């Protein structure tokens, strides 16, 4: 079965594609044709000059790798064809997404970690990219930063510095009224973060140290902070990763209506510590809070009361909804926490999207799964140790 060859558990990354792009822009690639196009034609030179030893070894390795990849590619294609047949679909329109779906259907897996489940990906995603030849047949490096040991990384810093210089020049021009900036607002980078160190390493096909990663971030921050940084947005965007917009685990339910025509929604299973309960929210209301038939004085201490009213105050709905809760078990703080989560969870149906996101950021929609830790034998508490005594 050719498919089974690709049930590899090796990590694959979406950044591989980026990596190829970036590294290809620096004339580093494993493809023999590209090498022939871009570098000196070694075969013709071979006849005239002797090839240096490292070059020979490299060429050997490169050929092996290319052969291997070619073989893998063929096997992948065959496997894909088999899958198409098994699924009874059109091979012309059978994409990678269909492959993933077919694999999930044919090999259902209960393994927790998605990375460990069966997969079938194109070989270039499965096998990490390798660095191409960095020197010519005479043994001379192509890259002027070759002897830094990390040419791609320093090339990146170099490029950033060049962009920075250009921006400064442009700023000078604007000040002297010799150039007109486009009417574009400042670069908005709130929707993403810099790529992590691991991702950057994959992009550059080089290992970098923490200090170097910090330097990278520093340079990029400085680039972004210049007033006309939008002019090199393409360069900046290459190293930014969009913040995954939080998806709410469940879709937001539509409220039901009672006989008076009021919208209401009940959240069951509001849990925190040992407290269990349910919370009902009625939408046009006057801010009444009923907890087990009493008002908010059900909680004696202010902290618990604050917990209960926090989602209401946060969304500004404290005078527009009524809340009714039944709660049992646990102590006051657990009960208050459960009610807080229940109210916030129920309020999702009554707030707009931006508020929903800020609620998420405020941690209102996150369940608190912490429980009491058990006492350990031989010590007075869960973590507490007996008083240390010399003898």
């Amino acid at each position: 079965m050719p498919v089974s060859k690709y049930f590899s558990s090796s990590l694959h990354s979406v950044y591989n594609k980026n990596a190829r792009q970036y590294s290809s822009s620096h004339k580093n690639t494993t493809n023999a044709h590209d090498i022939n196009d871009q570098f000196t034609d070694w075969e013709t030179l071979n006849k005239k000059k002797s090839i240096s030893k490292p070059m020979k070894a490299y060429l050997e390795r490169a050929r092996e790798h290319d052969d291997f990849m070619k073989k893998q590619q063929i096997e992948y294609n065959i496997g894909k064809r088999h899958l198409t047949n098994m699924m009874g679909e059109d091979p012309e329109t059978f994409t990678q997404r269909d492959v993933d779906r077919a694999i999930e259907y044919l090999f259902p897996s209960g393994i927790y970690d998605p990375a460990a489940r069966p997969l079938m990906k194109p070989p270039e995603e499965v096998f990490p990219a390798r660095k191409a030849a960095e020197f010519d047949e005479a043994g001379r490096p192509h890259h002027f930063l070759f002897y830094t040991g990390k040419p791609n990384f320093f090339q990146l810093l170099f490029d950033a510095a060049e962009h920075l210089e250009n921006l400064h020049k442009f700023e000078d021009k604007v000040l002297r009224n010799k150039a007109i900036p486009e009417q574009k607002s400042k670069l908005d980078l709130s929707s993403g973060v810099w790529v992590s160190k691991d991702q950057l390493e994959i992009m550059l096909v080089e290992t970098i140290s923490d200090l170097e990663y910090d330097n990278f971030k520093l340079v990029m921050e400085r680039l972004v902070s210049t007033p006309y940084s939008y002019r090199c947005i393409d360069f900046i965007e290459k190293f930014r990763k969009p913040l995954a917009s939080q998806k709410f685990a469940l879709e937001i339910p539509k409220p039901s209506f009672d006989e008076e025509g009021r919208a209401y929604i009940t959240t069951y299973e509001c849990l925190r510590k040992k407290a269990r309960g349910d919370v009902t929210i009625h939408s046009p209301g006057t801010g009444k809070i009923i907890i087990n038939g009493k008002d908010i004085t059900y909680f004696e201490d202010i902290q618990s009361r604050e917990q209960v009213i926090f989602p209401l105050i946060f969304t500004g709905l404290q005078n527009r909804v009524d809340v009714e809760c039944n709660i049992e078990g646990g102590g006051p703080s657990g009960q208050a926490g459960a009610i807080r989560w229940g109210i916030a969870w129920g309020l999702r149906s009554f707030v707009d999207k931006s508020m929903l996101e800020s609620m998420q950021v405020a941690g209102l929609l996150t369940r608190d799964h912490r429980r009491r830790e058990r006492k350990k034998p031989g010590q007075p508490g869960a973590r507490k140790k007996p008083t240390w005594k010399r003898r």
Partner: protein
Amino acid sequence: MLSRNIRYACRRYSHAVTFRTTESSPTQQTDNQFGLFYTVNKDLCKQLYGHGGLPKSYMKQSKTFAETAIMVRRPALDIINCIKATDLNKPAIRYVLYGEDGTGKSMTIAHLLHYAFEEGYLIVHVPWVSDWLRRVLRHKEMANSLTREGLVDLPLDAAAWLLHFKTQNQHLLKSPEFIVSKEYVWSKREKTEAGAPLHELVELGIARVKYACDVVDAIVNEVKLLSNSKKCKTFVAVDGYNGFFNPLTRLKTPTKKKVAPEEVTLTTSILELTKNDWTNAVMVLSADSIANPDDDTKNYLPQHLLYRKGFDHLDPFVPVKVDRYTDREFLTCANYYRDRLWIRGPLDMETELKLTSACNPFKFMEQCAPL
């Protein structure tokens, strides 16, 4: 300097709502003043509440604010209207204040005391019953009663109360109408003759602490007689009245026997006073769950707090519920605190405070203190 003062004043009063009334006489207060604060004169304050009468935390706050401002609230207005409409020739009406903890029962009594003072009532005020029956210092002065067999005297407490009585009514006691009706013999040498002024009797109780409890008893009888004979009208106010009907006090006799409230002479005197067998009087009593600390049911209804005994003793009475702040009262109170610079910061703070304090006046005061 001037501009700074103006800026300061502007900021202070920029969002002020009327929260204060200049009508400082409770006799003139009507529904127009509802929910507003009025200031009690400092000297009067000392005279009326000098020996107790205002809750301790409130005293602290009024000291900070350098004024005693009392909010005109619904129960006090209602009772004042009732008193105005009452025929005093009929047996005395008893009003029982009840409500949750911290809703302002004691403050209502304080407000009514001021009203009674303005109206010229003779004030008989017990600031807090549990001070007598439950508050046991290291050495609580106790003695077996000389005149009544099997009862216990609290001479120091009684003398302190006599002093309180004297300060509250100092202007009335001077009038020649207040005389003792019969002769009281305290010992071989000491006696009070019939026709002696009442303040002489009070002075004797303060000076000879040994007889203070008996003097209290005598004064209760005299006050009743004076009222009945229309020489004065009397205003009786007892805070924490249900303390008299608890099963036990925290007092112990030298033989370690626990004392029941009815075995204390002061209790018998006050209970005698709160019977409605006399006229020309108004009685305001409060049933407070704090005076009944052994019971943790959180039930604040008079029937529960007074027990069967007290309920029968008081029946018939007018129950008056003291409730939490309404929205308007809360707003004026918050504005008052803002004016005193007691709370500062954004206005949304009030909504949060309102929810966390659940509009309970005491809780609100407590929560504002550290802000």
